């Protein structure tokens, strides 16, 4: 139990640092300007199953505010994280594996398989990016741009998620 808390706090700090120090700086310019690699939602993604809903919302809110502090977009990441934190329990219910969840297991490929994990992470990240860019551009007038940026960023973010999963999970 304690092990799990330490792990999650470490992940929180680690991903925040990677996101704001490394990934934020990625700017390929030109046509690739649309790309922003967003990896920190993995913190919310991997929170233990037994985390209460209210706790999820508060953790999401806090994580978002910290990221916003560095991105200089007060509220945008926070609103996105709160939204996905709210959606997470319903998403997990939707993706219940055949044998059901084991409350003491972490939500990692080792327990539920790569296929399940990438479906879960994919949907989670896509929703996150879609909300994020919607709030960033903030108008239905930019619908096409929101969609393009979401898809492009989703592909790159998923690649990074894959790398992370292969290396550490």
């Amino acid at each position, binding site marked *: 139990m304690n092990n799990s808390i330490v792990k999650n706090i470490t992940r929180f700090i680690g991903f925040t640092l990677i996101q704001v120090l490394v990934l934020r700086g990625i700017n390929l310019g030109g046509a690739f300007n649309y790309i922003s690699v967003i990896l920190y939602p993995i913190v919310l993604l991997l929170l233990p199953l037994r985390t209460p809903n209210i706790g*999820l919302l508060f953790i999401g809110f806090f994580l978002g505010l910290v990221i*916003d502090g560095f991105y200089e*977009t*007060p*509220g*945008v990441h*926070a609103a996105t994280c709160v*939204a996905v934190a*709210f959606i997470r329990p319903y998403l997990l219910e939707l993706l219940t594996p055949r044998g059901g969840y084991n409350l003491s297991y972490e939500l990692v490929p080792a327990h539920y398989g790569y296929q399940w994990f990438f479906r879960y992470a994919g949907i989670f990240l896509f929703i996150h990016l879609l909300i994020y860019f919607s709030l960033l551009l*903030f108008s239905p007038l930019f619908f096409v741009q929101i969609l393009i940026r979401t898809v492009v960023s989703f592909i790159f973010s998923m690649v990074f998620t894959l790398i992370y999963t292969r290396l550490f999970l």
Partner: protein
Amino acid sequence: MRNLILFFIKYGHFLLFIGLELVCLFLIVRYNRTQRDIWINSTNIISGNASNTFDSWTEYFNMKEEAKRLAGENAKLKEQLFNKQVSSLPSKDTLTLEDQQYFLIPAKITNKSTNHPDNYFTLNKGRKDGIRPDMGVISSNGIIGIVKTANEDYSRVITILHRQSAISVSNKTTKAYGTLKWNQDLDYRYTSIEAYPKHAKLTIGDTIITSGYSTHFPEGIEVGVVEEFEIPKSEYFYKIKVALSNNLNKVKYVYVIENLKQQQQLEVERADE
């Protein structure tokens, strides 16, 4: 109380979600330049539409007030028109108070009859508002009658649909004049003219206006048009049926004409007798 706690257990995280999102939205709109501009623009469009709709509703509810205001304004305009006629200096464009002979008081009919041999209207203004007996009463379409009595708040009008009513009218084109008399047909759309001389020309459709030969009405207020007439063999006058321009059954708002020089005129006329 128990239900309330259960409610919060069940929907607490949803309420928290809404609350946190509202905080975030506030932060976004408050501290992000582009989002704030978009927000302000969009809300302006929405609130503009909303206030337009709201305005059209309140407009409807303010109609009564508006009607009152317009009646007052109309009274002012009619005053100017009548006073222009009596103004001795034709070159003068504006009227000073000394020129002003006629004042108009807008009023509303609170009680009326049109289907008796003698018809009266009751107005919602009285002595307090400056209404005195013998003042003329008109509406925007034509004449109504003459004030008979007035107390503090109300006044009673002898309409042109009354046996005692006799108003001097003239033909707009020939200027020949007669007296408007209620023919007691009990049809409020028509009345008749008596004492219109036989030698004067008359055609059906001629416009009848007030002659101005009385202290009640200024000259030129529309009364109606000649509907039909006959020339009785043994009499000196036409028998004329007039279609009134004013629908007395429908009329609701009227103006009472105050003639400032009425007393002077009557004085000089009486002195002669």
